[in-house]
Structures are given as structure tokens and as C-alpha cells.
């Protein structure tokens, strides 16, 4: 409402962020885990006095540098670009709180990149002792970028004491900071192992390939052993309402109103389990039969698991950008009551400007309310399609449903855990209903013959 809203048909703005983020997360986790891997593997080369490991690392490091410095860096900036376009109020709040934390991360990022290049360009040019030092420095710097950005990421789910103190320290070192850091580090090691498995399968000498494949498979073990413990630690720190959302979802899977989160959890667990079992019975127990194609399949599984898990993490935060502070549609929590009394459209700069010329055009006003309050998560006919979700409801049925959404009391509004309350006065709510009713016209017409009055106002979120 404060800014113009970027309309992304079918896909929805959230997926623009999502696509870039998933790619970035998969690469950046590799950048950190891979750094640790390179340092340990180089040490292994010297310890075993094995030139073959040394030479393997030289070729692996090119792949590493090319992937992390180009695609990793550009998608990292890309997340920032996309969030600025989709959620300007959210990112502006984060930047204003954590400017210097971000600036500090930038310093580590510069050190990380400079070290990556120095490391890559000095194979055989400096003493091996110095080269190993560079590898270790790279690993340390990259872990520090995680140490900082993890504070901002976890802050969004559990801002903790920051909500009252507004002190950056409370925001960064929030309740889920440490468990999340531990989980991410474990995942990073696993991803590093998975990437290295791909390059290992290219080694021609069978005996050496077998040795390296087994070595890389070991990198997936820490997450296997410690992952569940860290996950329980993480869950013990998230708000109760979030846990409620997950478990309600699980119990009502398939019929419940939030079964999609439970499904994502299943997919994430199944994929992660598959990878780990696969790693144990494949490259670890039977390294000889592990081929390039299987390694790529492995990576695809890893990519899908990362994507699903990160998507779930985002879903857990619903309906907020910063939990209990700012909703996913950019409205501050403490504004809701006032908006319900005074109206929404005149509150924001751009919502006012966009409706100023047509104050009595209900349909247009409804569209503007839809953009600002619904489009952060929904599209008209694509992702989380309103057309589908509305089904055959007519305008009156939609109004009844919107009245539920407008309730701030969770007892009366069972969507309050996943959707921001509708912040609108009566006239705006009617305008929104008018607009929404125009989206599902086809559905209504198609089923006129079989239509029955909508007595149940709940919307299935399947």
C-alpha cells in the first residue's frame, strides 16, 4: 500500500523470489560446505602423500570457483533484487534494522571471494603450506558469512526479544539462531559431499575413484547422525502457533486446511532419507558402482530436498514476513485494528493514489485491495489460484467468507495462523468481493446446473 505492487501473473511474486532463492541456497551452501571440504581434502592429500588427491582438487576447485563466484554471487544479489520488488516494506525494515550486520557480511564476502580467487590461481605457485592456509582461510570466511546472514534469516521467524527492545543484538541472536546455524552447517557439509561425488565419478583410475567416492560419501554422515537432534532443538525454539500449524497439517493431511505443509514435510523427509540411505548403500558401501549419472540423480534429489525444505521454512513463517511484526502483505501487525476502523485504501500512499481518480468504482477498488492484501501469496488463475480456491461461490458467499477472514480472534478465524487478517472496512470488503466474484465467473457458469447453495464457507487449501 505504501509502494506500487508488482503484478506477476500466474507465477506470483513469491515464486520469483522462490526460484532465485532455491538456486542460491543450493549454491551458497555448497560455497560454505565446499570450502570446508577443500581444506580437509587438501590436508588429506598431504597426509596420505597422495598426488592424485591433490590433482583431483585442482580440477574440482575450478568447478567450485566457477559455480560459486558467478552463479552464487549473482543469485545472491538476485534474492535481494527480487525481494525488493515483491516485498519492499519487508526488506526496507530488515535493511534498516541490520544495515551494519549486512555491511559486516559484505566484508567477509569480499574476503571470501578474494581468497577463493587467490586459492584457485595459486595452485603450484606458492608453497603447499601457504596454499593449505588459503584453503582454511576461505573456509573460515565463508562460515562467517553464514554466521551473519543466519541471524537475519532466523530473525524473520523468531524475532524474539527484538520486538520489544529493537536492539540488533536481540534480533540477530534470536531463539532459533543457534539450532538453525547447526542445521545449515550440517546440510552444507552434505551438499559439499554431493557436489564432490559428481566430480569424483569423472576420475578415471578405478581404485582412486573408489577411494574418493567413499571419502565424499562420508560428508553426508554428520547430517544423518546429528540432523534429527538439531531439528528437535530448532523446533523447541519456534513459536507454539507455528508448531500447531505443522501438526494440524499432519493430522489433517489430505483433508485438512493446511495439508500442503504436511505434504512438503513428507517430501522433504522422504527425499532427505532417500539421499542418506542412498549414500550409505551406494557410494559408501559400494563405491565402485557409483557412476556420474547416479551422482547427478543424487544432486537432483538434493536440489529438490533443499527446495522443499526452504519452501517449508518460508511457509512456517506465514502469515508474517517478520513474525508478529509485519505481515507477508507488508501490513504491520499493529496497524490492523486501525485499518479495520478507518479503511485500508486511504492509508497507504500508493493505494490512495491508485483509487483517487475513481473513488466510487467498486470493481477497481476491489482489484486494488486484492493486489495489496492477497497477491503476496495468491494469483488470479495461476499459483494458489483464486479462481480455483473460490470454486463456485457467488458474491454473497465470498462476502461471508471475507467476514471470517476479517476476524482477528483466532477462535472465529481459523485461517489466522496462515493468512493475515483482512484489513478493510465494510465498503472495501464488498469491493473486494465484487472483484473476486469476477475471477471465478466461468466456474460458476460451468456448474450452474449442479450448483447448490454454499453453506460451508471454508476454502480448501489443497
Amino acid at each position, binding site marked *: 500500500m505504501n509502494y506500487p505492487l508488482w503484478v506477476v501473473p500466474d507465477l506470483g511474486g513469491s515464486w520469483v523470489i522462490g526460484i532465485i532463492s532455491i538456486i542460491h541456497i543450493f549454491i551458497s551452501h555448497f560455497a560454505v560446505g565446499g570450502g570446508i571440504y577443500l581444506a580437509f581434502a587438501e590436508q588429506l592429500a598431504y597426509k596420505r602423500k597422495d598426488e592424485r588427491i591433490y590433482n583431483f582438487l585442482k580440477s574440482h576447485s575450478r568447478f567450485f570457483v566457477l559455480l560459486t563466484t558467478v552463479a552464487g554471487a549473482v543469485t545472491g544479489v538476485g534474492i535481494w533484487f527480487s525481494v525488493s520488488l515483491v516485498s519492499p*516494506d519487508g526488506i526496507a525494515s530488515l535493511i534498516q534494522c541490520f544495515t551494519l550486520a549486512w555491511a*559486516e557480511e559484505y566484508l567477509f564476502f569480499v574476503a571470501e571471494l578474494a581468497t577463493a580467487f587467490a586459492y584457485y590461481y595459486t595452485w603450484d605457485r*606458492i608453497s603447499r603450506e601457504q596454499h593449505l592456509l588459503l584453503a582454511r582461510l576461505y573456509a573460515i570466511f565463508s562460515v562467517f558469512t553464514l554466521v551473519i546472514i543466519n541471524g537475519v534469516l532466523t530473525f524473520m521467524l523468531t524475532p524474539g526479544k527484538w520486538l520489544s527492545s529493537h536492539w540488533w543484538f536481540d534480533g540477530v541472536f534470536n531463539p532459533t539462531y543457534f539450532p538453525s546455524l547447526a542445521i545449515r552447517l550440517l546440510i552444507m557439509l552434505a551438499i559439499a559431499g554431493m557436489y564432490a561425488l559428481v566430480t569424483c565419478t569423472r576420475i578415471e583410475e578405478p581404485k582412486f575413484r573408489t577411494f574418493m567416492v567413499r571419502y565424499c560419501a562420508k560428508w553426508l554422515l554428520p547430517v544423518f547422525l546429528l540432523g534429527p537432534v538439531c531439528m528437535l532443538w530448532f523446533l523447541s525454539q519456534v513459536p507454539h502457533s507455528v508448531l500447531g500449524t505443522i501438526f494440524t497439517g499432519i493430522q489433517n493431511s489430505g483433508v485438512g486446511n493446511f495439508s500442503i505443509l504436511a505434504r512438503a514435510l513428507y517430501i522433504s523427509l522422504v527425499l532427505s532419507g532417500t539421499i542418506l540411505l542412498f549414500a550409505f548403500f551406494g557410494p559408501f558401501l559400494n563405491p565402485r558402482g557409483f557412476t556420474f549419472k547416479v551422482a547427478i540423480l543424487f544432486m537432483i534429489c538434493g536440489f529438490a530436498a533443499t527446495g522443499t525444505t526452504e519452501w517449508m521454512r518460508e511457509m512456517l513463517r506465514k502469515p508474517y514476513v517478520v513474525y508478529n511484526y509485519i505481515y507477508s502483505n507488508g501490513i504491520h501487525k499493529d496497524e490492523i485494528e486501525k485499518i479495520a476502523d478507518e479503511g485500508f485504501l486511504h492509508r497507504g500512499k500508493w493505494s490512495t493514489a491508485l483509487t483517487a481518480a475513481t473513488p466510487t468504482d467498486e470493481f477497481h477498488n476491489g482489484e486494488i485491495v486484492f493486489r495489496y492484501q492477497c497477491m503476496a501469496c495468491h494469483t488470479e488463475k495461476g499459483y494458489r489460484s483464486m479462481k480455483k480456491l473460490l470454486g463456485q461461490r457467488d458474491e454473497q458467499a465470498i462476502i461471508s467468507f471475507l467476514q471470517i477472514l476479517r476476524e482477528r480472534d483466532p477462535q472465529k478465524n481459523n485461517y489466522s495462523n496462515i493468512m493475515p487478517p483482512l484489513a478493510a472496512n465494510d465498503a472495501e470488503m464488498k469491493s473486494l468481493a465484487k472483484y473476486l466474484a469476477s475471477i471465478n465467473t466461468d466456474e460458476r457458469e460451468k456448474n450452474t446446473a449442479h450448483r447448490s447453495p454454499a453453506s460451508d464457507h471454508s476454502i480448501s487449501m489443497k
Partner: protein
Amino acid sequence: MDLAHLIPSYQPLPFPLPVWLMQTLLVLGFYLHALPMNVVLGGGFISTALFAIGRSDQSSYAYRAAKALAVSLPLFISFAITQGIVPLLFLQLIYGPAFYTSSIIMAVPWISLLLVIMISYYLSYIVLYRTLRGQEGEKSAAKASLLLLVMSIGFSFVAYLFSNNMTLMLHPEKWLAMYEHSAKGMNLNSSEVTLIPRYLHFFVSSFAVAGMTLGLFGLYMSKKDSKFSEWMIKIGSRIFMAATVIQIPVGLWFLKAIPAEFAGNFLGSDQIATAVFGLSMALTLLSICTSTIAAGSGNRKAFIATVITNALLILSMIVNRHQLRLFHLNPHVKPELVAVSTQWDLLAVFLVSTVALIWYLVWLSALVLKSYQKPIAEYATNSSVATIGEVSHG
């Protein structure tokens, strides 16, 4: 409509630093971004041309200089992207209400620039690891030239999109009509009168900076190959001189295109703006003189004087650019009205870390540069591996 009603509000949170400090960091950050960015933009085109000129003889100076530039481009691209983070951070912080809005209005081209950067970036690596690998000949030189041209066109397009957004954020009066034209973000600020001269002003300067870089490579080579070194300094200085002379009419066009009131500020109405603008003009003339000497004789001192003058010139031009932004935005966007609650603790950590980082980068650069002065070490024998192994576990 009153434009004040279109400028989004700041967040209900205090700024973590005083506005003057954030502006200083914005200007310095942009300076550190502009240097490598210019090398990439101009260097890509110059390398394209030099590969085309020297394609039939791989020992020719043109070919060798083209290769030196092409090989360094991926590093400069990485610096440019990394250094872009600081100005972007502070631009969003101080001028977010204008910048977020203009970005959303041209969202599709704006976000697409990421893809263009990535493709161009990978092209620079393809030239390095595919085209210039193995047997080099006329064919590979022509291919490198072509790939670098595509890469450079990509980066020119990125620069064009940046010019679009940086000008659109200065014109709130255009926003509503453009957004109503396409809420899907399919807009460009191509009707802007200052767009082309502003874009050209940056584009031409990239050739000057890349010319300087070529000369600096020459300076680095002076002990190894003094003739080639002299040639690089001469060619680099010539490119610099030509680009700087072309900048004079382009700059005048730009000055004429901006609103008369703002042009007046640079020409006497505003003391600070006039002083910085005067300094820029003086440095321009000085750099033309010194580069003329270096271009003719390959004189190293004249070249170093040009490098220093140019470094100052770019900084003063960037201050001018910031002043122009202030003239545009001052009536509408008022960061000075936002409360400030300075995070002294983090600021101290940041300053100490900055000093440590600079020290580290100096050490690292010395290590790398020194390693390149020596021929590549022979593959270490098993015995030397053993020595290190013992060291790291001893």
C-alpha cells in the same frame, strides 16, 4: 496530484547511522564499484577490437594485450558485482522510497539484468577456459573476439537498464502514469531526455578507465618486457585521451539536458556543486595533458600522473552525480527527517573489520603477485608433500 502523496513513507524504525555517514559510504561504495565496472565495460570492447586486430599473429602486441585484458575480466566482473553491494545497500536505505518504487515500475527489465549479467559473466570464462585453451590461432582469436563482443553488448545493456532506473527514481512525476500503463513492470524510462547523454557519459568513461587499466598492465610488465610495456602504456593512454576528449561534447550535452535550474547549480548558483564541478573540469584538462605526453612517448611518470588524476576525476564526477540526485530528490524524499539511533557497537566492529580486511587484501595481493613473478613451480615431488604433511600434523 501532489507528488508528496506518491513518495512512500520510510519504515517506522530509526536509521542505524547518521545520514551524512550513510551518504559518504554510498558515494565511496559507488566509487569502488564504478572502477571495476568501467574496466569490464570498456575492457570488453577494447579486448574485442585488439583480438580482431591481432588475430593473425599471436605474438603481436595487440593479441597479447587483448589476451591480458580478457584473462583479467572475470576477476574485474567479480569485483564489480561484490562492490555493487555497498552502494545498493545504502541507496535502498537512504533513498528507498524513490528507488524501490522506480524498480517496481520497471520490474521485468530490472530483474532480467541478473540473467544478462550471469550469461555475460560465463562468456568471459568461456573465453578464458575454452577459446584461449590449447592451440591458439586465427580462428580462436576471432572466436574470442566475437564472444567478448557479445559479452560487452550484454554489459552495455545492463548499464542501459541501470541508467533507466537511476533516472526514473529521480522523476516521481512519471511514476503513476507508468505504473498504470503496466502494473506488470513492463516499463522503461526511455522517454527521459537525460537518459542517452547520461548513459553515453558513463559508457565513454568506461573506455578511458579501461585504457588506464591497459597502461597499468604495461607498468606491471615493465621489467619483464620493456618494449611491450611501453606499447601498452602508449595505447592505453591514447584510448584514455580519445575517450576523455569525446567526453567534453557528451558532458556538455548531458549538462544541457538536465533541468536548467540544476545546471545553474553546477555553474555558480550552488557553491559546493560549482567547486566540485570546477575541480572535475580542471582534472579533465590536466588528465588530457598528461595522457597526451604518455600517449606520445610512453613516459611512465606522465602515465602515473594520468592514473592519479583520473582516479581523482572519477571521484569528483561521482560526487557531482550524487549532487544531481540530491537536487532532484531534495524536494520529495527527506531522509534527514527519519530518527537516527546510531549502532555504535556494530559501527566499531565494522570499522575494525574494514581495517583488518584492507590489511588482509594487501597481504593476499602481495602473495599472489609475488607468485606470478616466478615461473610455475614444478609439481611438488612426493618428498615435498611429505614435508608439508608433517608440518600440518606435526
